[in-house]
């Protein structure tokens, strides 16, 4: 399985799509997490993401290893943005390709769920009313 991991100020869906493309693979599933303009009814002006970079990459690699062990996935890309991000901006992209589609959904959902639970990345939310969480 080929793996692309990235934690950078700018990430794009296209680079994930380019990486997972393969004429041997019929199914591609891509999850994109974007900054919402609203959290529980409160207007959001921006998010700030920081990471413990070396450990975050290492945890992302473990997720990729778990995926490779559980499913016949050919390629996976996991990208996370850091720094200031505004509503509509991309925060995270997880993309997988496989020969058949069912496992591509399972693997992609597992990867984003596990990323959100374990990978040391933190966000601070800035609300329109001036509060910060």
């Amino acid at each position: 399985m080929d793996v692309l991991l990235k934690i950078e100020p700018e990430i794009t869906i296209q680079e994930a799509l380019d990486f997972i493309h393969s004429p041997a693979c019929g199914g591609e599933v891509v999850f994109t997490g974007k900054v919402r303009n609203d959290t529980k009814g409160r207007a959001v002006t921006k998010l700030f993401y920081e990471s413990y970079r070396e450990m975050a990459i290492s945890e992302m690699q473990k997720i990729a290893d778990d995926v490779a062990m559980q499913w016949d996935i050919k390629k996976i890309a996991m990208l996370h943005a850091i720094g200031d991000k505004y509503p509509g901006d991309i925060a995270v992209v997880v993309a997988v390709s496989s020969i058949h589609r069912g496992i591509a959904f399972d693997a992609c959902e597992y990867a984003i769920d596990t990323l959100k639970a374990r990978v040391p990345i933190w966000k601070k939310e800035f609300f329109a009313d001036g509060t910060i969480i």
Partner: protein
Amino acid sequence: MGLLLFGVAKDIAGQSILTLPEGITTVGELKSWLLATYPGLQQLNSLMIAVNREYAVDNQPIATSDEIAVIPPVSGG
């Protein structure tokens, strides 16, 4: 190597790096010391410690030569 702090743990402690206090030899002891020294940390839903970039259990030994990090609840994605 020092004690790295991230996210809200960094905000509560007011600094991003601390020196591992003398006499602390396990992850569990470190957690107790952190919660006593920075009571604000008690408000968090979880407080994990990573040793050399791996999540660590309470009885894991630590030394000043380790890279130790204080990991408040993660919120990526």
